[in-house]
């Protein structure tokens, strides 16, 4: 196997070796490879080193080629190339700009991949030793966080982990009164910074001693950016206080610049507070509860413990967890190496990266073939010059070298020009990306390395065609003929280039259309509720520190009453989560009487009165839940998915289920709602009455009359009326939120659309150039035809016919590419098939119209030639 790969490598490298020494060179390498294979058969050499060895043939071949080159010769070539390019500023500008776009687009997308997937978080020591730890279940694999006792139990495995730490995102309400500001941060265990190996920029970071008792450690660490923006980099910051909610927190220190937690996506944390403070911040104290899973866990492996052996030790940990508490039945502890993105995030990021890299790769191919085309046109015009140089004694190899130098110079100029593009993209891309990107995307060595590599590959791609064309040309013939005519066969290469350009751009146009239709479908989708006219705002009572449960209930009741009286509002309610807009939570439920291990995690929705009416969720059977005072018993409404799961074929209304240690009677069944996203199917759900389940963080929902959404400010003004100091964190228009949930599709659709427009323009210009050139080469023929009485129309048809043949070739290629790209984009599509014939046909029509115009203009011009003039001049 390896031998075949190795000989392929040698065969490829042999192209580089000068002809007179090639046979000898190939023979030597063949001998070496045979010896290598013999050693491999004895088990002496591993496959990687064998491949590494045979790759050496490429630099060897390159050395053979350049061996005789002198610095003077190369310099002379460079000077000559620079002069040539300066003499054709229009051509140079177009070629360099086109290439810079192609190269810059590739490097920019790479910088995104680099920042999200490849780069390690700033400031973390030996990130290779870090592992993410999560719980999964044998029967339903997933990636999920832990309860506090479970984390502590995992940390006991000291032979595997030198440290286990946890964190959870938290939005802190900072400051008082009108200066209240919401700052995203993290609740972290006391050893968080130690496990990561982060060193303080100012003061000190958290220690384990800062996280021992619930609500007993009012201390905070600032991020470097918060320290600079809010405190003007005050060096005396340590010891000052920051008001979080109603409590002053003592500032211990500042994290190093660039450190923004260990997650690549999501909002960058700007402050860190000990996890035990959750008790003070939210009133919840889940530190003894096995049932409440809320903390993300990661660990650092002991010195010398490999990832595989750590994984092998996890069954012991899983068993211990299962034995500790029945809640953990069926739980398995899973690991993922490194930090940054969890496995699901990685899969998604990888998928989007592949799509984007593929698309910019296509764009680079198009730009290269475009520049190759330009060079070929010029090469045709320079045949006399080349022939003269050949006649004066320049060897063919020397001429090719000259062409290659010219291409390299163009590529180098384009690469330099691409640098500001990449730099700008580092700032611009995060805004375009569907997620909040918390890592810096600024270009680093790796991005610039990629940029240079792309430049070299591009230079090679577009430089090889003209060099090849020159080397094959009958030079003396060219000198004799002058430059007025050219055989048809010579333009075959250019035809092929234009066909490939048209094909690639058709693929991109079709891709844009598929993504565009998906976004449009999303705006009219029916996720099980009526998003039109709905607005909602999230209210958190806890940070104010002023509401107990009774006061909270009274406030929400007041809010709903006020809202229902507000103009333009059809109905109002509260709920603990918003469909699709995020914040979904799950709770464990069990059919009453079923064994303990038959628990199921269903969507957990706490609702106020009139919820289903407000949301437009149809009731299928039974009744809806009543108001604050109308539900003395523990009753719930479930959706059809849960009814089918627990009581298949049976009437669910009247049945009982058990959750949170309470037995609930089902009084109604509603239609399924897609809570998570438009692309994920509806999950089984339980709707609990707010009358029985209190939550201090609820979202006020308003449905506008006649499907018209009330203004978002109405939510804020209603809340401000009830309590002027109560913060409303997020306000949503649910219809917009749903469209926004298709953000990836839209972002990529936007990018593909922009690239498709660029590609189509380049391809059409290429076709125009090709037809004009073809016509100009046939001026004499056309003149004769006109003189012989040919009509304009038949002449136009003559020239157009060939152009349409080329366009049809592009069309055929493009259909194949469209199908392929459709498959790649499949995961981003919504409500449209990846191989949608209608879409591809529409894209093909656009391409043919554009191609038709591009070909018709020069054809018409050529047919209007004055026969006498053309015959005299030619």
């Amino acid at each position: 196997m390896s031998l075949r790969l190795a000989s392929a490598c040698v065969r490829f490298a042999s192209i580089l070796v000068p002809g007179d020494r090639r046979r000898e060179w190939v023979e030597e390498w063949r001998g070496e490879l045979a010896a290598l294979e013999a050693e491999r058969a004895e088990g002496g050499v591993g496959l990687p080193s064998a491949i590494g060895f045979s790759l050496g043939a490429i630099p060897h071949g390159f050395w053979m080629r350049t061996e005789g080159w002198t610095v003077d010769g190369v310099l002379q070539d460079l000077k000559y190339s620079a002069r040539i390019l300066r003499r054709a500023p229009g051509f140079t500008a177009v070629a360099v700009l086109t290439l810079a776009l192609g190269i810059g687009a590739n490097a920019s997308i790479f910088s995104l991949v680099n920042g999200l997937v490849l780069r390690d978080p700033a400031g973390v020591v030996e990130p290779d030793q870090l592992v993410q730890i999560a719980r999964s279940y044998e029967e339903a694999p997933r990636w999920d966080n832990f309860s506090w006792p479970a984390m502590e139990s995992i940390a006991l495995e000291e032979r595997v982990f030198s440290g286990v730490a946890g964190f959870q995102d938290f939005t802190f309400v900072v400051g008082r009164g009108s200066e209240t500001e919401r700052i995203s941060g993290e609740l972290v265990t006391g050893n968080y910074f130690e496990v990561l190996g982060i060193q303080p920029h100012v003061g000190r970071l958290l220690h384990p001693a800062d996280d021992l008792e619930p609500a007993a450690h009012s201390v905070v660490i600032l991020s470097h950016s918060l320290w600079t923006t809010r405190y003007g980099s005050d060096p005396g910051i340590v010891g000052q206080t920051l008001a979080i909610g109603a409590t002053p927190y003592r500032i211990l220190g500042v994290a190093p610049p660039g450190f923004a937690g260990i997650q690549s996506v999501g909002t960058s944390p700007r402050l860190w507070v000990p996890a035990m403070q959750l008790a003070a911040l939210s009133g919840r104290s889940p530190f003894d509860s096995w049932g409440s899973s809320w903390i993300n866990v990661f660990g650092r492996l002991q010195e010398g413990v490999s990832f595989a052996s750590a994984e092998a030790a996890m069954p012991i940990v899983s068993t211990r967890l299962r034995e500790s508490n029945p809640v953990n039945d069926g739980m398995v502890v899973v690991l993922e190496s490194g930090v940054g993105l969890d496995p699901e995030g990685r899969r998604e990021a990888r998928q989007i990266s592949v799509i984007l890299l593929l698309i910019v790769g296509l764009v680079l191919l198009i730009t290269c073939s475009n520049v190759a085309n330009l060079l070929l046109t010029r090469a045709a015009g320079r045949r006399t010059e080349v022939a003269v140089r050949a006649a004066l004694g320049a060897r063919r190899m020397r001429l090719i070298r000259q062409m290659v130098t010219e291409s390299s110079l163009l590529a180098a100029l384009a690469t330099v020009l691409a640098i500001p593009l990449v730099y700008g993209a580092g700032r611009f891309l995060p805004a375009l990306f569907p997620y909040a990107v918390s890592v810096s995307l600024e270009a680093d060595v790796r991005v610039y390395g990629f940029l240079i590599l792309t430049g070299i590959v591009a230079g090679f791609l577009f430089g090889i065609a003209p060099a090849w064309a020159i080397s094959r040309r009958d030079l003396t013939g060219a000198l004799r003929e002058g430059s007025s005519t050219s055989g048809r066969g010579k333009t075959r290469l250019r035809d092929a280039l234009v066909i490939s350009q048209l094909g690639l751009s058709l693929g991109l146009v079709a891709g844009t259309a598929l993504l565009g239709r998906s976004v449009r479908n999303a705006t009219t989708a029916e996720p099980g509720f009526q998003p039109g006219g709905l607005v909602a705002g999230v209210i958190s009572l806890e940070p104010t520190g002023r509401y107990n449960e009774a006061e909270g209930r009274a406030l929400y009741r007041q809010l709903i009453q006020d809202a229902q009286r507000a103009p333009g509002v059809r109905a109002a309610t509260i709920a603990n989560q918003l469909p699709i807009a995020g914040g979904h939570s799950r709770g464990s439920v069990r059919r009453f009487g079923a064994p303990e291990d038959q628990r199921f995690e269903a969507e957990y929705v706490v609702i106020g009165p009139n919820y289903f009416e407000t949301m437009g969720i149809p009731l299928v059977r039974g009744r809806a839940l009543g108001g604050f005072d109308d539900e003395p018993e523990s009753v719930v409404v479930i959706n059809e998915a849960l009814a089918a799961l627990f009581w298949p074929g049976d009437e669910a209304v009247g049945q009982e289920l058990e959750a949170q240690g309470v037995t609930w009677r089902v009084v109604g069944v509603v239609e399924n709602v897609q809570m998570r996203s438009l692309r994920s199917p509806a999950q089984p759900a339980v709707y609990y009455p707010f009358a029985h389940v209190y939550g201090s963080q609820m979202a006020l929902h308003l449905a506008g009359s006649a499907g018209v959404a009330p203004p978002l400010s109405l939510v804020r003004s209603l809340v401000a009326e009830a309590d002027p100091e109560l913060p409303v964190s997020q306000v949503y228009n649910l219809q917009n939120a749903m469209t926004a949930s298709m953000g990836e599709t839209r972002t990529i659709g936007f990018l593909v659309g922009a690239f498709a427009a660029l590609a189509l323009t380049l391809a059409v210009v290429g076709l125009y150039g090709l037809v004009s050139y073809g016509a100009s080469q046939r001026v004499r023929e056309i003149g004769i035809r006109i003189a012989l009485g040919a009509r304009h129309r038949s002449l136009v048809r003559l020239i157009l016919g060939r152009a349409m043949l080329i366009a049809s070739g592009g069309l055929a290629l493009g259909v194949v590419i469209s199908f392929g790209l459709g498959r790649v984009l499949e995961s981003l599509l919504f409500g449209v098939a990846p191989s949608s014939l209608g879409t591809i046909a529409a894209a093909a029509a656009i391409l043919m119209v554009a191609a038709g115009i591009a070909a018709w203009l020069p054809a018409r011009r050529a047919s209007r030639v004055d026969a006498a003039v053309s015959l005299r001049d030619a």
Partner: protein
Amino acid sequence: MARSLGITSLQILGAVRDGISYGLDIVARTRLPSGTVYPTLGRLKKSGLVKARWEDQRVAEREGRPRRRYYELTAEGEEALATGAARVTIIAADLQPNATGT
């Protein structure tokens, strides 16, 4: 001698002197990448420090494999290696932390 040889060239010359005559074995001995070893051998051959010979065609045919090219040191190569080695020794001594520099 035109130019003093670099460490890579000296390593390769040393290997050839020790009777390691095939490129593959030189790569194994010196742990240099093959993309360095072969061009360096070519350069050494051009400056006359090593000779390249082909192994006997009949031997290769008997063993059913392509013939191999092997390298030998020339007299100039011996001399260059000795000079180079002496120079490296002096540099190495200079680099010792307790060197007085006198």
